[in-house]
């Protein structure tokens, strides 16, 4: 996001003109903004960050070589130390900016003052950011026409320090021992703020000496010394001498050499590169051999990463003598000098906000915009391994972290927003600035710089390339939360870059992760609160309770039994056999009698020796009802001297049939009048197996010799089903009856009549077969069912049996059932009446 220097309105990153006033927006590199903001102030007291004030001496090693890269690249456990350090940096910068609130608001270029860092850094971030924004606005106002004036203003401010101290490292305001804290620039006319702002920013790169409360003077970072922007041993110059110090800090930049001052820039607007940038390039060209270039280049490249537009090129080259970004700077310098394109100061120093200034300060460490953009592209692509810890680790750590945070990924790679409370505002600004800067191909602050080849990016830069997933960001201070809400989403890229470099897994949805965290961290009682469910009452498992209830139940049954016994005689008299016999003589029993007579008609027509196929289709569960019926029918058949063959389509029917035949064995010996053919498997198919009736195996051999029907004596005349004179099925279900009714007539060509004696349950279902016998060849000629029919049959045969004994009880049960049904009907009617 860029701040309009004219109206102060926030504009989208990458916009060239203000959306409100339409004024051309000046953009300076983010890294420069940040750098200027940093080194223009005393070291902010970031938590967890130990930043040393690097002495203002020419860096002898590549930038970042002495930095504690292990700290930079170490994946954070709970709270990344880098992030904490960065946050502390931000806080320091904020405090420093807060010390100079008026100046910063009026002149955005003043934000690089080396104000002391207070302990309340986190809550000061608003002021710090406001100062940065003011500085940016000021620089924007003085962008095009004032660029030369800025440079000229900077020049006298730092007349001799730039060349005399080419190696002076621009140390950040964080922990610059021995370095004077960068003083804030004096108030200037808005038109003149651009030049002084840059000068001051660069000037405050010198380690501040007069730090504010509690901020010790720290030596300048190694990377600054490497760049030659800071003189490590030189005392920190006051803020008023920022311009002069700037020249000293920046050192003998190539352009500065050409201009004999190495200061920030010639006054001529036709210069293609600002002086400070040229100085940086010159420094880079003059830098000696350094530790692994990738490590060295990491912090500096990270600073300039924000301006990168090209995709980062993975180029692992940790063992190169010079960092890639230095080589890039050299290449750019060569190209620039050869092309001699006009430089536009306003491109390098556009009006910015506080955050942008901060980024610009950081980015000012590296060569100026023409080469800076190229450099930024390179470091942005490569996430090189951190350089070994060489030299000062504390300033290197925070710087490396800051560089990584500043690094902006390519615009084509969107990154999800991190947690708001975790992203410092200045980081968000940095990220916002990056798309804005990349979206401005004609940005005047960026002179023409040949784009570096992605393949040349160091590895550490390519590693910092953000991925598509969001990374977890440790929670930041709550004070930063409200401010971060207004922070544009550009800072998310920086966070993602940092996460990618640290290897932190990215969380697609940080808010969702937070919510999940809250849910998981809920108390166990609430989490395990069972949802009330309608659970069935569990059965009483207590043995004592079961015994008690069993005794109660037995007592109730005993009482009923005793009462029944007491009334049994009376009930027997009223509803017993006698009463039933009288009932059969009444017209009400006409239907029962008719059905019984219809059933017995074929039975009475049996002749002696006729084969009757008797099917037992009930199970022991219903034997109480069906056994008396089967028994009375069997006796009726045996009394007529018929030969009864019992079969069953159910496995349990065979033994039941055998029991039935054994009961009549005394009178009608098994094997002579009766023979059990056993179980016919296959249900309906079993009926069809009777086609081979002669070869059917007997269930129990009568003499122990014959195994098949045709072998048994007295049964050898039976050839097949056509020799059967009558078929009777005693079934407890309609299904088995249907099997016989459907299959047997086809098998026997409809000759033998069929009789069915079923239970009361199957009676209504089987009756249609009886009623349709007249019209169709259903072959069912007789049907009876139930205990009442059995009792009536027993009466007709003159042999009372179990059915007749149950008539009284059956009648009483029926009466009780009717009474209960009537009571239920009346209760239902009454209930409906009450409702109405």
């Amino acid at each position, binding site marked *: 996001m860029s701040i309009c220097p004219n109206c102060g309105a926030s504009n989208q990153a990458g916009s060239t003109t203000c959306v409100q006033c339409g004024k051309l927006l000046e953009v300076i590199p983010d890294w420069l903004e940040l750098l200027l903001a940093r080194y223009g102030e005393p070291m902010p007291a970031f938590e967890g960050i130990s930043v040393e004030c690097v002495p203002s001496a020419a860096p002898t090693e590549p930038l970042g070589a002495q930095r504690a890269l292990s700290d930079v690249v170490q994946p954070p456990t709970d709270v990344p130390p880098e992030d904490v350090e960065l946050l502390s940096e931000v806080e320091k910068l904020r405090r420093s900016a807060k010390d100079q609130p008026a100046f910063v608001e009026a002149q955005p270029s003043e934000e690089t003052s080396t104000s002391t860092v207070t302990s309340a850094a986190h809550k000061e971030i608003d002021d710090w950011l406001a100062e940065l924004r003011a500085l940016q606005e000021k620089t924007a106002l003085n962008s095009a026409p004032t660029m030369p004036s800025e440079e000229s203003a900077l020049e006298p401010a730092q007349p001799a320090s730039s060349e005399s101290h080419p190696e002076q490292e621009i140390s950040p305001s964080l922990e610059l021992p021995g370095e004077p804290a960068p003083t804030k620039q004096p108030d200037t006319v808005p038109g003149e703020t651009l030049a002084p702002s840059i000068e001051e920013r660069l000037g405050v790169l010198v380690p501040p000496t007069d730090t504010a409360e509690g901020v010790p003077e720290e030596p300048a970072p190694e990377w600054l010394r490497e760049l030659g922007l800071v003189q490590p041993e030189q005392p920190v110059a006051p803020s008023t001498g920022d311009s002069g110090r700037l020249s000293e800090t920046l050192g003998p930049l190539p352009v500065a050499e050409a201009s004999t001052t190495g200061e920030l820039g010639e006054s001529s607007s036709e210069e293609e590169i600002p002086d400070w940038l040229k100085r940086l390039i010159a420094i880079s060209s003059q830098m000696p051999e350094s530790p692994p270039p990738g490590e060295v280049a990491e912090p500096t490249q990270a600073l300039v990463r924000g301006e990168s537009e090209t995709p980062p090129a993975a180029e692992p080259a940790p063992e190169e003598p010079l960092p890639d970004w230095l080589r890039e700077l050299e290449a750019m310098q060569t190209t620039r000098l050869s092309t001699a394109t006009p430089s536009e100061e306003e491109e390098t120093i556009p009006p910015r906000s506080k955050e942008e200034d901060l980024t610009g300060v950081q980015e000012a460490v590296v060569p100026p915009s023409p080469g800076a953009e190229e450099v930024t592209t390179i470091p942005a692509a490569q996430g090189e391994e951190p350089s070994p810890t060489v030299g000062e680790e504390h300033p290197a750590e925070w710087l490396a972290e800051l560089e990584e945070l500043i690094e902006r990924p390519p615009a084509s790679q969107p990154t999800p927003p991190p947690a708001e409370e975790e992203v410092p505002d200045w980081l968000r600004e940095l990220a916002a600035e990056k798309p804005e800067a990349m979206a401005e191909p004609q940005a005047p602050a960026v002179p023409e710089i040949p784009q570096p080849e992605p393949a040349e990016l160091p590895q550490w830069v390519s590693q910092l390339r953000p991925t598509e997933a969001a990374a977890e960001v440790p929670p930041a201070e709550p004070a930063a939360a409200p401010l971060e809400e207004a922070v544009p989403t550009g800072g998310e890229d920086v966070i993602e870059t940092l996460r990618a470099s640290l290897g932190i897994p990215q969380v697609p949805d940080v808010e969702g992760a937070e919510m999940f965290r809250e849910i998981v961290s809920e108390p166990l009682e609430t989490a395990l609160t069972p949802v009330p469910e309608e659970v069935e*009452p569990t*059965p*009483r498992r207590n043995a004592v309770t*079961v015994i008690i*209830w*069993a005794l109660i*139940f*037995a007592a109730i049954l005993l009482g009923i*039994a005793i009462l029944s*016994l007491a009334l049994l005689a009376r009930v027997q008299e009223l509803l017993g056999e006698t009463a039933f016999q009288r009932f059969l003589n009444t017209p009400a029993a006409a239907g029962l009698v008719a059905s019984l007579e219809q059933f017995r008609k074929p039975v009475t027509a049996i002749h002696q020796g006729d084969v009757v196929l008797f099917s037992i289709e009930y199970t022991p*569960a*219903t034997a*109480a*009802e069906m056994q008396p019926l089967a028994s009375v029918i069997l006796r009726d058949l045996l009394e007529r001297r018929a030969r009864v063959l019992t079969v069953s389509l159910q*496995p*349990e029917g*065979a*033994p039941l049939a055998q029991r039935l035949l054994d009961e009549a064995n005394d009178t009608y010996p098994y094997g002579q009048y009766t023979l059990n053919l*056993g*179980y016919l*498997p*296959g249900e*309906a*198919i079993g009926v*069809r197996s009777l086609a081979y009736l002669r070869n059917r*195996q007997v*269930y129990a051999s009568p003499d122990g010799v014959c195994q098949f029907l045709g072998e048994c004596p007295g049964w050898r005349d039976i050839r097949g089903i056509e020799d059967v004179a009558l078929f009777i099925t005693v079934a407890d279900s309609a299904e088995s009856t*249907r*099997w016989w*009714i*459907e*299959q047997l*007539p*086809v098998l026997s060509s409809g000759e033998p009549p069929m009789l069915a004696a079923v*239970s*009361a*349950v199957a*009676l*209504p*279902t089987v009756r*249609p*077969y009886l*009623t*349709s*016998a*007249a*019209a*169709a*060849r*259903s072959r069912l000629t007789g049907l009876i069912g*139930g*205990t009442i029919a059995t009792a009536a049959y027993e009466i007709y045969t003159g042999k009372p049996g*179990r059915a007749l*004994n*149950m008539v009284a*009880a*059956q009648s009483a*049960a*029926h009466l009780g*059932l009717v009474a209960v049904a009537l009571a239920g009907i009346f209760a239902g009617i009454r209930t409906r009446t009450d409702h109405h």
Partner: protein
Amino acid sequence: MSAETIVAAILTFMVWSYILGDNPAFRIAEHLLVGTAAGYVAIVVWFQVIGPALHDMVLQPSPTTVLPFVLCALLAARRWPFMRPWAAVSLAFLVGVGSSLAIGGALFGTLWSQVLATASLSLNPADFGESQMFLTSNSFWQNLAILIGTIGTFCYFAFRIRPGGPLRDLRAAFIRFWGGVGLWMIMMTLGALFANAAMSRFTLLIDRVQWLLQVFGLR
């Protein structure tokens, strides 16, 4: 009183304990019943079906005695995936034979006979003897009830779509009326079925109680 009687009595009480709710005693009796029935069926099947078939195959090998076991083996081999195509032969045989018998029996043994019988019902008073004798004839009223119930039941299960055309209202009223009649017929049929089922279960209970009374010498 034999041990079998005592065990039977105890098991009877254990089954009746379900009136107090599901309890271990009922579960034990239930499991005993199921297990005993399954075991008994297995024994009967072996001695009544498989055993004789094996005996015939061994002593009188012939296509009619060997083929059933071949099909049984193919059906058992369905466990292995590579034998499943061959097991399909047995399944096809079973399904084909069973379906043919079942469908044929249902069509010609049940459906066709019922349709013919219903269609042959006469409501002609002349078929019931002298004039006005049909009023006292059970057959006449039975036939009438059958016809009304059949039509009403069919109309009840008719698709409830709004008829179209010029006589849509009349047709809708016709369907609605006869559907109501069919609903009443269905309710009465279900009531009769329920009543008969209750009678059957009462019989079983009465028999068991009488047996217990006899066991305990109370009867």
